[in-house]
């Protein structure tokens, strides 16, 4: 009987709300960011080999990427078209949401020898910006750890072809490295959990 009474109260409350509440606040960080998850995974943890995880990326890296997609400076397939649908304020909301999501480790097949070689190359060449073996995103440096190898390879190919512009500091470090070195680095980053 008691249960029944509480149900009535709830039902009555819900009814009055649905009839009165018409005004709605502008989209929140969650409202905007949830739409990304169909392709980038719930909370930004990607299961698709060509899609990056957005979880735990730095705010600057996300805003920077979205601005460059929008302007066309960073090459893309759908991301440019999608980025044009948002304002810079929206980018900040996405950044707020994804930067506060937990790091997303992935299980993937990597070459052990390449991982080993990549680890020492990372330490010697990349570790000043790609902190904590690429697990930590800082400023405009993206989280590299546990990104899918396929995604990393596609992005490196874009860098190599010149379609995607490398930051100067990165270009300096990458230039002396061989194709094999770069491949080893990508295997290393993919392996970090």
């Amino acid at each position, binding site marked *: 009987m008691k*249960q029944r009474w*509480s*149900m009535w109260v*709830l*039902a009555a*409350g*819900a*009814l009055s*709300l*649905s*009839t009165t*509440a*018409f*005004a*709605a*606040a*502008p*989209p*929140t960080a*969650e*409202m*905007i960011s*949830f*739409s*990304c*998850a*169909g*392709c*980038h*995974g*719930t909370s930004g943890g*990607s*299961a*698709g*080999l*060509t*899609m990056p995880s957005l979880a735990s990326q730095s705010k600057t890296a996300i805003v920077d990427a979205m601005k460059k997609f929008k302007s066309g400076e960073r090459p893309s*397939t*759908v991301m440019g*078209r*999608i*980025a*044009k*649908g*948002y304002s810079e304020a*929206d980018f900040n909301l996405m950044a707020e949401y994804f930067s506060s999501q937990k790091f997303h480790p992935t299980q993937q097949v990597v070459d052990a020898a390449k991982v080993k070689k990549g680890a020492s190359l990372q330490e010697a060449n990349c570790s000043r910006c790609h902190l904590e073996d690429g697990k930590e995103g800082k400023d405009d440096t993206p989280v590299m750890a546990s990104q899918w190898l*396929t995604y990393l390879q*596609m992005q490196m190919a874009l860098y190599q072809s010149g379609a995607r512009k490398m930051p100067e500091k990165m270009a300096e470090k990458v230039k002396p490295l061989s194709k094999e070195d770069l491949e080893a680095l990508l295997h290393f980053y993919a392996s970090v959990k």
Partner: protein
Amino acid sequence: MTLDRRNFIKVLGSASGLALAGCATQGSVGSTSEIMPKGPARRVVVLGGGYGGAIAAKYVRMLDKSIEVVLIEKNKQFISCPFSNFYIAGLMNDMSALTIGYDKLAANHGIKMLFAEATAIDPAAKKVITTEGAVTYDRLIVSPGIDFRNEEVEGYTADTANIIPHAWKAGAQSTLLRNQLQAMPDGGKVVISMPLAPFRCPPGPYERATLIALYLKKHKPKSKLILLDANADIVAKKPLFMKAWNNYYKGILEYMPGKKVTAVDAAKKTLLVEGIEEFKGDVVNFIPAQRAAAIAGKAGLIGEDKKWCPVNMTTFESTLQKNIHVIGDSAIAGAMPKSGYSANSQAKVCAINIVALMNGKELTELSGVNVCYSAISDHESISVAAVYTIKDGKIVSVPNSGGISPVDFSMTKAEHAYGESWLRNILTEMST
């Protein structure tokens, strides 16, 4: 006590010898005895575990763990319509990449599964009647997908789809069409008929025609395919499909706009356009016109057009029935197409605002996305993308955003890879 325990086991779906619903009791009228008595917790019931419903159930729980969520679904496994054309055209060996279960989703988020068929909704009593019993809700999310307007087609009977499949709901129908294509001798003719818009998945019929043409080109090069479009013109990704057909499938695929099929003769594998022009195929894929699934009609959710469900485009609450929200293909959602990604996106908007309503909080305006890939060969795909906002209570595309792939086909190979990841991510989101 015994009853509680029985319900508990059923709800978890851990079938320890108990018959699971749907299959055993097909076509029954349902039971009004309460199968899962509602406790003090507020409860959202979700009807349909597809692209919309599974996500709505998950996100309500993610946003508010104090709300109990019951997901009612007929089938123990879900088979994706997106990418089922790959299977039909022989680009996938089986449907494993299209198939997901609900175990992990239910366990990860504490969603109570009820594998049963909903037979009625009683909006006044706030109850869903299923083949297994009645379930009471505080708010109901209906995501039932589509049904076919077969009654508009002369000669269409209960048996027609077993001979000329629609294959517009993935599963046995997809297998039937695939098997018919494989059994067809070289030199045969395939006829596909698609309905007037709006229908589920606007680019889907064009992708299907394209991939079947690819199959014919590779395996049965003397064969032909005719696509009869009831619409006056291609309704999705037009310049991209036209270019693909012209570049790759000339002499195999013939597109015929403005051909509305009004009668069928399944035994003769013949379609009749506007009652006069006859098209006969060795394989006929007739995709009938559509409406919101029958349960939406029974619940009084279908609007004046007698086809689809009008909703408030912020909350997705039905404008016809209080406390019932409609998402996905069956809803009228402004500029958002009837696609899997739209349903996913709407489910999240609906979840956010249902949780707000149930907690007496302010509503949030919709921000939505659609991303949809279509394959044009075994290694190339094209896409359409859009971002949605709300204007004067209606969902509209954000101006100067979205659109289709570049027509120079410079992205098609990359987009093929992105398409595969799309499928993997969206199905993972629904099943974990």
